[in-house]
C-alpha cells in the first residue's frame, strides 16, 4: 500500500495553490472590510458582537484542530495519520486569528472600554439601576474578570496555541525529510503538556470572550461546551477536506472506506458528548431553578411580557440541528462512508455550530426593556460577512501552507498502518 502513497501527487501544483489562496485572501479582506463598514449602519457594539461570532467560529475550528492533533499524538493513533497533515496546515491560521482579534481588543480601550464586553466600563448601568462598578457580583469576580486579564489572556492564549502549533508543525514537516523518530517522540511530549494547556486556555477563552457577556451567570459546563463545539467543528472541516482532496484525486489510494467510518464515528461520539454537556448545563439550571442562573435561559426564551421570543425557536433549531438530526444520520454506517452524505452532514453541523455561537453571544444585545434583540436582524448580515471574511483568511493561510509539505506525513512510523486502515 505504501507504494501507492509514493505515486500519489505530493502537493498541489504551486501556481494553482497560489491562485486559490489569493482568491481566498481577497474574499477574506472584502468580507472583513464589509463587516467593519457595517459600523456605519449598526454601530460599534452590534458589529463587534457579530464579528465576535465569526471570529470565535473560526478560532473554535483552529482550537479543535490543535486538540485533535494533540489527541492523535497522545494516543499514538494510527488511522488519523493521513489526515493529520491537513490539520497541521490548518494550525497556521492562529497567528492571523490573533491579528483579527486585535480590533476587538483595541475596543477595550476606547470610549470607557465597555463597547464589546459591557462590564469593562464601571459606569455601565445594569438592570436595577446601579452601575457595574458598584455591583457586588462584579466586584467579587473582578480578580478574574478585568480588562488586563481579558486582553493579556487573549494574547497569551493565542501565543500558547501558536507555540504548540509551531512545535507540532516543525516536528511533522521535518520528519518528512529526515525520517527521524525523535520528531514523533517530541510531538508526543508536546501532546502530554499541550493537552492540559489547551484545555485550560480554551476554557478561559470561552469564559472571557463569550460567557462574560452575561457576567452574572454561572455555569461550570461552559468550557466543556466550547470544547465540544471546537472538536466537532474541526472534525467537520476534516471531512470536508477529505472529500475535497478525494474528489480532486490527491487522496485516491490514500483513503479507504474505513477512514470515513472512523471520522464519522468520532463525529457521532462528539455529537453525543456535546448533547450530554449542553443538556447537563440546561438540566441543572432548570432543576435548581435559581434566578441567578435561570435568567440566562429566560432571556433566550421569553420577553419581559412573557411572550416567546425568536431565540426560543433558535434553541429548538440547535436542539434538533445539533443533536437529533446529526445523531440519527451518523448512526448509519452507510451514511458515514458515503462521501457526499457525510460531507452534507458536516456542512449542516458547521452551520449549527455557528447558530449555537450566535445563541450564546448575540442575546447580550438588549433593547430598553432588557429583552434580547431578535435573531433575525441586520446583525446576521455582519455575522455572515465576518464568517466569510475570517474564513477567507483562514482558508488562505491553509492553502499557503498546503504546498510547503507533502500531502501526507510519508515517513511517520504509523503511516503504513494508516494507509491500510482495517484492510
Amino acid at each position, binding site marked *: 500500500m505504501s507504494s501507492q502513497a509514493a505515486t500519489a501527487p505530493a502537493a498541489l501544483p504551486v501556481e494553482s495553490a497560489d491562485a486559490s489562496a489569493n482568491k481566498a485572501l481577497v474574499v477574506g479582506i472584502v468580507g472583513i472590510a464589509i463587516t467593519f463598514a457595517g459600523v456605519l449602519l449598526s454601530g460599534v457594539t452590534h458589529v463587534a458582537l457579530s464579528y465576535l461570532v465569526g471570529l470565535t467560529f473560526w478560532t473554535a475550528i483552529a482550537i479543535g484542530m490543535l486538540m485533535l492533533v494533540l489527541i492523535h499524538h497522545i494516543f499514538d493513533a494510527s488511522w488519523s495519520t493521513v489526515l493529520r497533515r491537513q490539520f497541521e496546515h490548518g494550525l497556521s491560521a492562529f497567528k492571523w486569528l490573533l491579528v483579527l482579534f486585535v480590533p476587538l481588543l483595541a475596543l477595550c480601550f476606547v470610549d470607557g472600554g465597555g463597547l464589546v464586553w459591557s462590564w469593562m466600563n464601571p459606569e455601565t448601568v445594569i438592570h436595577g439601576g446601579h452601575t457595574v462598578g458598584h455591583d457586588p457580583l462584579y466586584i467579587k469576580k473582578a480578580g478574574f474578570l478585568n480588562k488586563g486579564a481579558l486582553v493579556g489572556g487573549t494574547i497569551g492564549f493565542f501565543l500558547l496555541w501558536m507555540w504548540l502549533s509551531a512545535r507540532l508543525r516543525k516536528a511533522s514537516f521535518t520528519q518528512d525529510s529526515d525520517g527521524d523518530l525523535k520528531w514523533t517522540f517530541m510531538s508526543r511530549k508536546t501532546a502530554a503538556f499541550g493537552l492540559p494547556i489547551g484545555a485550560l486556555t480554551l476554557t478561559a477563552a470561552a469564559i472571557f470572550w463569550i460567557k462574560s457577556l452575561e457576567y452574572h451567570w454561572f455555569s461550570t459546563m461552559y468550557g466543556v461546551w466550547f470544547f465540544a463545539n471546537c472538536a466537532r467543528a474541526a472534525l467537520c472541516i476534516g471531512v470536508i477536506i477529505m472529500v475535497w482532496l478525494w474528489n480532486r484525486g490527491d487522496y485516491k489510494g490514500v483513503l479507504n472506506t474505513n477512514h470515513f467510518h472512523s471520522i464519522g464515528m468520532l463525529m457521532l461520539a462528539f455529537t453525543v458528548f456535546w448533547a450530554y454537556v449542553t*443538556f447537563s448545563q440546561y*438540566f441543572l439550571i*432548570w*432543576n435548581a*431553578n435559581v434566578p441567578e442562573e435561570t435568567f440566562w435561559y429566560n432571556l433566550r426564551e421569553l420577553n419581559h411580557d412573557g411572550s416567546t421570543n425568536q431565540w426560543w425557536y433558535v434553541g429548538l433549531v440547535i436542539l434538533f440541528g445539533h443533536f437529533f438530526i446529526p445523531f440519527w444520520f451518523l*448512526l448509519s*454506517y452507510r451514511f458515514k462512508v458515503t462521501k457526499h452524505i457525510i460531507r452534507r452532514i458536516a456542512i449542516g453541523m458547521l452551520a449549527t455550530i455557528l447558530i449555537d455561537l450566535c445563541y450564546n453571544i448575540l442575546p447580550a444585545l438588549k433593547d430598553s426593556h432588557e429583552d434580547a434583540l431578535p435573531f433575525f436582524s441586520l446583525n446576521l448580515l455582519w455575522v455572515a460577512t465576518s464568517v466569510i471574511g475570517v474564513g477567507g483568511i483562514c482558508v488562505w493561510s491553509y492553502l499557503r501552507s498546503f504546498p510547503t509539505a507533502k500531502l501526507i506525513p510519508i515517513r511517520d512510523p504509523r503511516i503504513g498502518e494508516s494507509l491500510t486502515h*482495517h*484492510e
Partner: protein
Amino acid sequence: MAVQPYGLIATFKTAPDLYHAAEQVRDAGYRHWDCITPFPVHGLDKAMGLKRSIVPRISLAGGITGFITGMTMIWWTGQIDYPLIVGGKPLFSPMFAFPVSYELTILFTAFATIGGMLLLNGLPRHYHPVLKYDHIVRGMDDTFFIVIEARDPRFNVANTKALLEKIGGASVTELEP
C-alpha cells in the same frame, strides 16, 4: 445408505491462500460455509461475500426500548402511581426523566448488542462437528480452514471436494455430523 457427512473441511497454509480460496468458494455460489482462522483476517468478510451484520439494528431497537422504558417508568410512578410534588416541580417532565432514560438507553443497547451477537452467532454452543476433526486445534495456532456444510444446496461430496482441492485446499476431509 451411508450417513450424510456434516460437511467437508480443507486446510490452508497462509492467510492470502485462504483469502483467495474464500473468494472462489463465494463465486461458486455456496452459502452454508465458513472460514476458521487463528486471528481476524481483515477483508475476509468481503472475500466470503458476507453482508453487514444486523447487530446494529438490534442495538438500535434495544436503545429505543430503553429510552421509552425510562420515560414511561418516571411518568408512571410520578404522575399516576404515586403523585407527589417535589421541589415545586411538575409531576412529570421529560427534563428530569432524561438522565434515567439516557442510562437505560445505554444499558438496553449494551444488552441488545451482546444478546444479538450471541444469538446470531448461535452462542453459547457446546458442540460443533468441526471439534471432532483432529487438526482443528491448529486453527488456534497457525492453520486456516474452510468448512463447506452438507446442507448447502450446491453440496455434493465429489464436486465440492474437487472444488476445495482446485482452490488449494490440502487434506480435504469429511466431517462426522
